[in-house]
């Protein structure tokens, strides 16, 4: 008895099978995360926070490089990767920290592009930007005769008591300098950042859903998953038509 002829394998069926297998996991994730996002508010995803180090790193919430800082009395001012911290709390001023000084009851923190005036509790009283500062970038900060001095472009500027105006002046004292942080301070700062800069879970799921969380490779993978749905649909229809005929 002769063997039955080998069954002919259709390329469309093979593609359908293997493409479906390859796309199954991304599609499962897209479907699941899509459902979660549609109900984010009712299931409390907006209120939950994610503080995993690798997630925070993706959002640039964990600074890199070597932090530097200085002590003003019992307060610690530090700069890490363009972020400025006062006693481990983020101070919302952009730019690289150049220094800080105590003046009357206030603390003045300067970056190369902003100056923040904070009261004794650490609350920001005034935030000065390019509109109220000498030509940027700022280079140094200091105090002389109870007045704030900023250096920029090789000149020194003396500020009024309310910090809203300034004039060129002579600054004879040395400006404050930043130092590398001690190991204890560094660890405390790292822990504080990781705890306080947590991201909302809904935001993380949304960015993982769109692929953005993983950068452009994530976008590409999401696009490939979407394209595979289109191809699978077309292949499926083709196979269905053949079977019907």
């Amino acid at each position, binding site marked *: 008895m002769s063997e039955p002829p080998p069954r002919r394998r259709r390329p469309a069926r093979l593609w359908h099978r*293997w493409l479906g297998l390859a796309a199954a996991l991304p599609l499962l994730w897209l479907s699941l995360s899509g459902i979660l996002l549609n109900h984010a508010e009712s299931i409390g995803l907006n209120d939950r926070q994610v503080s995993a180090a690798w997630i925070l790193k993706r*959002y640039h919430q964990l600074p890199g490089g070597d932090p530097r800082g200085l002590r003003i009395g019992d307060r610690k001012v530090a700069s890490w990767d363009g972020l400025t911290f006062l006693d481990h709390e983020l101070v919302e001023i952009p730019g690289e920290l150049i220094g800080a000084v105590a003046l009357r009851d206030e603390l003045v923190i300067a970056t190369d592009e902003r100056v923040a005036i904070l009261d004794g509790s650490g609350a920001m009283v005034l935030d000065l930007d390019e*509109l109220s500062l000498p030509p940027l970038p700022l280079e140094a900060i200091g105090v002389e005769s109870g007045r704030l001095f900023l250096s920029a472009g090789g000149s020194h500027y003396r500020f009024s008591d309310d910090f*809203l105006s300034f004039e060129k002046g002579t600054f004879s004292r040395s400006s404050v300098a930043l130092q590398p942080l001690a190991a204890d301070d560094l660890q405390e700062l790292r822990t504080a950042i990781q705890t306080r800069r947590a991201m909302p879970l809904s935001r993380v799921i949304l*960015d993982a859903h769109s692929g953005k969380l993983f950068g452009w*490779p994530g976008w590409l*993978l999401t696009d490939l998953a979407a394209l595979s749905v289109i191809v699978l649909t077309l292949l499926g229809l083709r196979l269905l038509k053949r079977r019907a005929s």
Partner: protein
Amino acid sequence: MANLIIKPLTLVSATASRLRPLFFVIALLLSGGSAFSAERIYQKPSDFIRESLGTIPATRALSLNAGQQKVVRAILGKRYKTSSIRYWSVGKKTAFILEEIGKTEYITTGYLVSGGKISSVKVLVYRETHGWEVGRPSFTKQFRGARLAQGMQLNKGVKNIAGATLSVRALTKLARLALYLETLK
């Protein structure tokens, strides 16, 4: 029997061989890439002030007392970033550069107020990854002519943008704040 075992293996091997370049490409792509870089600078604050007022006048500031900070908290739902807020004034026109968090980042916005009405609104720096559409003039022009009505609300509605709800809310709150601050000058 041998055929039954070997055939699927051959099939897997052949398919894997065909898809291998694709796997390599995906693996290579997954090995790198950065996540977010969102800051959009539309206009420098000094350019906004110059454009709005024709010059850059001396900086002034409103130091908010406890009662005024209470009103600000009612408008924003929280304390404003600073307890003193700068403004620039020429004639009846007053410009404010205000900042408020959309979802997680500050949005820097310029407001020009005149005679209790908003003359113009411009998003100057947008740092969120989503919702940048609030920076479009087609959106910000909705604020023109808005006044403070009862309950410190705007007297006209501002249409929401899907996917940018929090940014829209932030800009609307700041518009109310700018109008309130003008009454304190």
